């Protein structure tokens, strides 16, 4: 009994230390990034541009049509903004987990495992770059534009904030969970892109452009529809075109907790499976 209690307090202490440790490693990487100033600034601008042009692509579609899947540009901007914010913040804190295969291959993972800082904190802060804020900022601008489509009430403001946090959690778990595949096949890292960036791209469009089966799998298998689709329907006061229960709008945080737990399990079993390459 005492052992269990000891274990729990130990874990809690570890959790409390994590943010500070993350910040220390992140600060080091930011300073390192600033060593090549031209690269730092071009990367910052480029990162913002990636998402800007993404949205310009959507906007250009609206040069030809005025509704896509029954939705107007402002409504799509809302969907786009919530999803972009979620993946942007998640990427800022955990993005380089995508490169875990490289750490396995080159043996740097061994070095990390010997340090007294949780591996996930080290991987998250590895190569940390503020330039990723370009992506988040741009999403917030689009979100601001999309907010014009919502008839705001205090309840809806609360729902929007909760949804933004949940969206971040869901993308965070996707980044971690799917990158675990690389513990088994080190060079199959690109598979996770299909789920992370693919999920983000899907949620930039109203789900009405997809067939019903696609929506079902995005709800019950890869629950990316909870990132923005269900909550945004409630924010916009639109009935669900697929006839799904209306309370789906409010359970994104629950979905986030479930995906985060699953990602945690995947991470632990991946690490247990891990054997050094010896290089």
């Amino acid at each position: 009994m005492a052992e269990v209690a000891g274990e729990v307090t130990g874990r809690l202490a570890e959790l409390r230390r994590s943010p500070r440790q993350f910040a220390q490693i992140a600060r080091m990487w930011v300073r390192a990034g600033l060593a090549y100033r031209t690269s730092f600034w071009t990367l910052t601008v480029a990162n913002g541009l990636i998402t800007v042009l993404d949205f310009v692509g959507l906007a250009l579609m609206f040069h030809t049509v005025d509704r896509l899947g029954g939705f107007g540009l402002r409504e799509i901007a809302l969907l786009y903004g919530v999803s972009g914010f979620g993946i942007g913040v998640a990427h800022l804190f955990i993005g380089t987990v995508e490169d875990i295969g490289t750490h396995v291959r080159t043996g740097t993972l061994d070095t990390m495992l010997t340090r007294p800082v949780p591996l996930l904190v080290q991987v998250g802060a590895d190569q940390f770059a503020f330039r990723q804020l370009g992506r988040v900022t741009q999403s917030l601008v689009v979100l601001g534009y999309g907010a014009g489509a919502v008839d705001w009430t205090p309840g809806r403001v609360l729902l929007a904030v909760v949804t933004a946090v949940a969206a971040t959690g869901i993308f965070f778990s996707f980044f971690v969970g799917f990158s675990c595949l690389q513990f088994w096949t080190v060079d199959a890292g690109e598979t996770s892109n299909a789920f992370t960036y693919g999920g983000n791209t899907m949620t930039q469009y109203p789900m009405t452009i997809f067939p019903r089966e696609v929506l079902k799998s995005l709800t019950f298998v890869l629950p990316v529809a909870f990132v923005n689709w269900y909550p945004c329907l409630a924010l916009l006061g639109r009935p669900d075109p697929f006839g799904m229960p209306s309370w789906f709008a409010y359970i994104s945080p629950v979905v986030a907790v479930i995906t985060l737990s699953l990602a945690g399990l995947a991470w632990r079993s991946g690490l247990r499976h891990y054997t050094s390459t010896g290089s």
Partner: protein
Amino acid sequence: MPDAVQDAGLYAAIARRSFHRYSTYRAATLAGIFTNCVFGVIFSFAYLALWDQRHHAGGYDANDAVTYVWIGQALLMTVALWGGGTTDDLAARIRSGDVAIDLYRPVGLIGWYLAGDLGRAGYHFLFRGLGPTVLGVILFHIALPATPVAAVGFLASLVLAVVTSFGVRFLVACSAFWLLDQTGVRTMSGVVALFCSGMVLPLVIFPEPLKSILLALPWASYLQTPADIWLGHRTGLDVVAGLGLQVFWVLVLLALCHLVLGAATRKVVVQGG
């Protein structure tokens, strides 16, 4: 003349080895095909929604639009649209100073890396290209080139696309002679290429004058020109005109590569050299 034959043999050997080098990463190839296919499906539905509203946007019908999506996914890696390929090795060697060794090889630096990049493109075309195309045919019944002329024209246009993209990527890698670190310029160049090549949205449905400007720039070579030949939207003299513009940009870019490389080797002290 025997010299030229010898050179051709050497470049072919470089290309062949480069092909084999990329064929080592089988799991990566499969993972990449999977990801390309997922994006192919997403964009297909998005385009179908758009063409459902406007049946002949940009002169394409819905099937043309969906075919365009899958051509794009198939060419993404072949043309190295985002960047990458052998020019990344060059940038790394500029940064480490190893480029000094490349410079006194009895083979031109540009030819060396271009031959390697063509080998890489060949591998990516056969595997990363074929995978999405087959799935596109199965899932969305995309159109294949209707005539032998379209097929041959497409292949010729694709080779020019790879060389055009190589020229741009080589210039980007050369920025490392001055900046030491190419990553910023490389990312920026990838972003520009993504938008200007028609990867985000076919250039034909862009509003004027943006459409005409982008169609005249080198990035149209990457996807829009080969796709239009495949789809049969360029036939007869239009094919020749399209290929001609691609050749023009290839010549301009390779000439620029020579100039920049000359300036770099004259003016820049090689790191650690």
